[in-house]
């Protein structure tokens, strides 16, 4: 048992924390998040240069990390600074590409910060059901053409390539898509928690095949497991910030002549919040540790962690605002933005009810056959 990062990983964490602290202040972050682009190519390049993208992937594909705790360590820091750049999409697309095999050059470009690839899997009707894919493939003279819709893809406008799933051969296949190809249109929009996302509409768009036809479901699951580990650690980073900010407020804000942190009712609620955050951190540790394990263990721990984060995240976001009072609802205070992001993490890749149902289904039958 050892709950400390390795020396190397700790160095990365410190370096990333320092960078964000010095160069990615809340003012800078808001500027980026509200900009037309919704992300900063400059920071992206600088962070890739620092090795932050490389830390998300294993040595086999040119990275120098890729374990659950590497992903967790990076996203915890990203959460603390509310970074909006396309790390999640990169992680998920890169994980899928690595699992599919090949694509060494593109992965190298991703790790070097020269290419942004995002993962477009969910569809307007799918609501977290990873098997629900309606996008269709047609074989053409040159290759394959895709038709369908993909929903709420974070930072899709920032992408050079989009990894897209489609139904084929009784299963799911993956394809790489260039943004500028005919038949591809993107409806971009701001997200309520900052940065941008978009809907992808495909009308016979030319695409390159990735991996074997109809066999990508396992790859999708693996990419989502990595994405879930990232999100739960991002949430842990955010919750620590919210807790610290709320404690600070309770110590300094005075009403009735004393700091409001002297009121026992708030103290006990705060104790509950602190306790729940530690439970959430443990859930995140479990999910990170299980990312390299067998499918059932990995998926159950990911579902448990995402469920826990969904439940605790709502509590922490709501209590942090409530204990701050009106000021907690203002744009000016970073708090409200952390609360928005934390809440929206609960809407990404699977919500509380979905994750609980999945956890239950994974517990039934051999290897969670029904999930």
């Amino acid at each position, binding site marked *: 048992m050892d709950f400390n990062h390795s020396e190397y990983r700790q160095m990365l964490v410190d370096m990333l924390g320092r960078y964000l602290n010095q160069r990615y202040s809340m003012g800078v972050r808001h500027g980026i998040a509200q900009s037309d682009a919704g992300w900063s190519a400059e920071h992206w390049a600088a962070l890739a240069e620092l090795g932050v993208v490389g830390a998300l992937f294993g040595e086999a594909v040119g990275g120098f990390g890729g374990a659950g705790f590497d992903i967790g360590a990076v996203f915890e820091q990203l959460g603390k600074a509310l970074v909006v750049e396309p790390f999640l999409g990169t992680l998920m697309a890169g994980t899928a590409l690595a699992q599919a095999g090949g694509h060494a050059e593109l992965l190298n470009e991703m790790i070097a910060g020269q290419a942004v690839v995002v993962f477009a899997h969910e569809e307007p009707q799918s609501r977290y059901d990873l098997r629900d894919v309606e996008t269709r493939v047609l074989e053409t003279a040159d290759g394959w053409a895709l038709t369908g819709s993909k929903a709420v893809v974070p930072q899709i406008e920032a992408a050079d390539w989009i990894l897209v799933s489609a139904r084929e051969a009784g299963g799911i296949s993956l394809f790489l898509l260039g943004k500028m190809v005919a038949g591809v249109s993107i409806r971009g929009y701001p997200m309520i928690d900052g940065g941008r996302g978009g809907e992808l509409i495909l009308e016979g768009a030319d695409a390159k095949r990735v991996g074997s036809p109809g066999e990508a479901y396992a790859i999708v699951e693996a990419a989502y497991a990595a994405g879930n580990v990232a999100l739960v650690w991002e949430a842990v980073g955010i919750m620590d910030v919210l807790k610290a900010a709320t404690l600070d407020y309770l110590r300094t804000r005075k009403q009735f002549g004393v700091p409001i942190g002297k009121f026992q009712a708030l103290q006990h609620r705060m104790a509950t919040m602190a306790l729940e955050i530690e439970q959430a951190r443990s859930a995140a540790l479990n999910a990170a540790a299980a990312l390299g394990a067998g499918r059932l263990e990995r998926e159950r721990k990911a579902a448990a962690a995402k469920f826990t984060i969904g439940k605790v995240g709502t509590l922490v976001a709501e209590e942090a605002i409530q204990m701050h009072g009106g000021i907690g609802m203002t744009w000016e205070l970073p708090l409200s933005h952390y609360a*928005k992001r934390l809440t929206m993490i609960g809407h990404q890749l699977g919500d509380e009810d979905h994750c609980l149902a999945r956890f239950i289904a994974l517990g039934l039958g051999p290897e969670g056959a029904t999930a």
Partner: protein
Amino acid sequence: MNLDFTPQEEAFRQEVRSFLKEQLPARLAGKVRTCKRLSKQDMEQWHAILHARGWLANSWPEEWGGTGWSLAQRYIFDVETAMACAPRIVPFGVMMLGPVLIKYGSEAQKQYFLPRILNGSDWWCQGYSEPGAGSDLASLKCAAIRDGDHYVVNGQKTWTTFGHFANMIFCLVRTKKEGKPQEGISFLLIDMNTPGIEVRPIILLDGKHEVNEVFFSDVRVPAGNLVGEENKGWTYAKYLLTHERTNIAGIGASMAAFEWLLHIARAQKKNGRPLAEDPYFAARLARLEIDLENMKTTNLRVLAAAGQGVAPVAESSMLKIRGTEIRQEITALTRRALGPYAQPFISEALDEGFKGAPVGPEYAAPVAVEYFNNRKLTIFGGSNEVQREIITKAILEL
């Protein structure tokens, strides 16, 4: 024991419904139902329609242009208008200042201000909270010093809803520093156009401007704008809180919001079936519906007690707590119902005249904003922590 309204009251309900059917503009109801933003003109339009019908000031006596309704009538009116998705009456003049003036104002103040509230000449806002005086309102510092036939006001108010629309503000100001803090507060009416007043927007977490800070620098207010006696303002401010409030639980608004949630939960699909039939979501909906049904009856009980002359101070606190909790749970479930489509935020889609196509389901755009915005319900108007203190003292006597 009888939980039903009288036939007369039911007849009144029909009258309200007919009125709403004829007079409530579909454009306004549609905006309210779908949580779009109301403009100042929208609010003024509904105000004028109610005024024309004589139904604007339903907590005022008839002699001042009010309806003279019973508590039951007021409750029915509240519920029916909310269920029909009528805009909420902007409360500061009609609901808050009006009753105070009627009870404590001078004849001249009543003669001058009450008609102007009704006909919309004045848009009032409220100057109670200060940066250092929130839950602990009595610690307010904004000072008014008598100087001849004027008061000179210096200080700051905050969380002033629609302060940027208002031409008048009613303020609690400190006129005495000695003694108990409650005993040095006065109730002052101030023209927002007086030199020395500055209104600064507070932007909320949805990026929008609804509340304000108001700064006073040597603002000269005619002494005739003092309501009642100097240093008795706390009594007048509290009057509103102890005055029977039939609508504090927001039953009608919650019923309407619950209907809209059901609409969405039936339209959303999960695993190919309506989300409303998913066991977990159905359980969340059912719990909420039961809570709401229970609160409806609790509200009627408070109403009946108030009708028998019992001032339901602490019961109002229960209604405030549970009412806001239920309303927040409705907005939380609506947010949950959307799944991934809670994330896109097309702010323009919340305003009238938006021409773009919706992202995801047509009802999605305002949902997450509405959820975040409604966090205020348990904070403003006496936070739920303050309400628990009231229950502790007034009902539990601890």
